[in-house]
């Protein structure tokens, strides 16, 4: 058993299923994602089958099941971004990176996540790469944005 997972679990009473979501949130905050092994550990601790925990965790957008990439891209699909055609942004980025929201590219460089609203509706549509916001973007801007990160890495 992973010691760091045990340390997180130890903060919660054993077998209390109502602690499931807080535990998963803590694990994700620490590791950046929920691994298979951690689901099994949590299941053992709370006496819940791993399949049920996975079912619950996939219900929520906030949980990831792959480690985040070096550049974690959050795409807003809140109301303002949606009416500003964020769906096209999402599709275009999926095409460029070859991954879908929740996934991480094979080289570990990029990962995608859909979020509801980042509170910058007047700048819609927007994406956030790690801590940097790219605002009022168009689908055709994405290639350059991604390239700038790849080149930044090479230099």
């Amino acid at each position, binding site marked *: 058993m992973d010691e760091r997972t045990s340390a997180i679990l130890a903060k919660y009473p054993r077998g209390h299923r109502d602690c499931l979501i807080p535990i998963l949130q803590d694990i994700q905050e620490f590791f950046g994602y929920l691994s*298979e092994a951690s*689901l*099994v550990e949590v*299941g053992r601790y709370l006496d819940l*089958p*791993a*399949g*049920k*925990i*996975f*079912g619950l965790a*996939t*219900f*929520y957008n906030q949980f990831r*099941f792959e480690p985040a990439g070096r550049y974690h891209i959050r795409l807003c699909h809140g109301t303002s971004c949606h009416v500003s055609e964020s769906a096209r942004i999402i599709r275009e980025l999926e095409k460029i990176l070859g991954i879908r929201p929740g996934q991480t590219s094979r080289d570990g460089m990029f990962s995608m996540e859909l979020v509801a609203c980042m509170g910058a509706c007047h700048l819609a549509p927007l994406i956030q790469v790690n801590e940097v916001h790219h605002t009022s973007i168009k689908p055709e801007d994405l290639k350059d944005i991604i390239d700038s990160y790849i080149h930044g890495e090479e230099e």
Partner: protein
Amino acid sequence: MFVKIEVNNKLIKARKGETIMSALESNGIMIPSICAMKDFTPTGACRMCVVEIEGKQGLVPSCSEPVNEWMKIKTHSPRVIRSRKTIVELLLSNHPDDCLYCDRNGSCELQGLAEDLNVRERRIVGKKNKYKLDHSSPAIVRDPAKCILCGRCVRMCDERLAVFTLDFINRGNSTIIGTACNKDLNFSNCISCGQCIMVCPTGALFEKDCLPEVEDALHNSDKNVIIQYDPSVGVALAEEFGLKPGKDISGLIHAALRKIGFDKVFDTSFAADLVTTELSHQLVARKKQKVKKPLLSSCCPAWIKFAEQSCTDILSDISSCKSPQQMLGAVIKTVYPGISGFDPGSIFSVAVTPCTAKKFEAQREEMTKKGLSDIDAVLTTRQLARLIKLYGIDMSQVEPEIADEPYGVRSSSGKLFGCAGGMTESVMRTLPWAAGGKDPEPSRIAELRGIKGKKEAVLKIGKTSYKFAVISGLANALPVLETIRAGTCDYDFIEIMACAGGCINGGGQPIGADENVVKARMKALYGLDEKEIIRLAQKNPKICELYDDFLGGPLSEKSRDVLHTTYSVRKVLL
């Protein structure tokens, strides 16, 4: 306590606290539903069973709404029918339209509903579901594209089996049903019992097809194709040909199998007799050694897989006996060549079972010796019906025949293995003999009969008494397994069957059987037993011959080599 409710302008009586649906059904009004399952908690997910209740704004699902005094219900008003029809149309809008090629063509509930609700045009056009077919399991194929998310498989797996393999994954219109971490079925903790197939309304879950292999072998003149069939198949196959449930057509099966071209037709009940004798001797030996923990049965491959992944601490208490199918398979490949002159490599051994887990069992590593598998192909009852139809055999014209010697000879105890409790009853008839005493007069052991989840019986031989328990429906086994771990279990033998009622209700049986059908099959097997002359396993002359000529005796070195197996811990996502 009764209450009065008004249904379609007529007063009917309903029991207080029951759901509207159950009240309507007992008054002869059929309400369509997809997600409702008898004896399971209602979920109200599919909304097919909605009715109109005066004073309520929306339509109400009758499967979960309890009756109230003076409730005024309309069950088939235009609004209700329109709503039901729209649901079916929506379900069909993204459903793959390949009914003609579907495993469940003809037995599909969605097809039936579309027919009943007179859906005759494609009013709603959606994007068709596209998912990868999950072929990974040796027993069960999953086609998520055909899944309509009723959740019946999930509830069956959770509530009856307590295996928790399946659950809803994701949310909204990207919801699918899948295993932990959405892995393929063979990486999951699925025990292949096939009960999910039995409750699936569509073709989203079905058993692996091995008819082509069997047909190839039948057409290969170098192969000697030998087939054995399970007692539960004999009493259920009739249903596939439109006959009344609970009719034993073993004689017709023998004849049909010969017509198809099988070289030898054997009865798995012969091997059930073999299991009985081996198991009885194990039990006597265990009692002599004063082992405190109970011996656990090993005939149900689904239970065995469950034990290997979840009960690793008690694996050593499971009987080492192979299941009847595998025992007969092993005998056919090792002993039978000496009798028949067949080359072991030329034998293609087929088993017909009521079970999908047997498909998994047949491909276990332990079941192959020197490159020869005990069993080469496993067909379910449904697949046998398909094979018979494929070869154009009219079952109503077939004259009954008897099975081939030597492994077609069986005692009626062997037939009882099809019912949960039958194995124990059979062992109780043989145990006195195995303990060195006289044969008992077989009598009906009432407490072991019926479809209850847990049954108990006690047998006294001289001063020793043996305590038996029979568990059917794997979820019922969990409390008993806990008592074994705690050291407070005082049973000597526990028979565990994954499916409720035993093999007669297995995952390979005809689709659409309710409790009454299962009871009818059970009655047929017990009925067989009452009429027979040979009713004890040890009285089966061919069993005696097998021991005398080849094996030496129960639990001999040879027996252990051919008839027994081992279990190992399985690592799966739990």
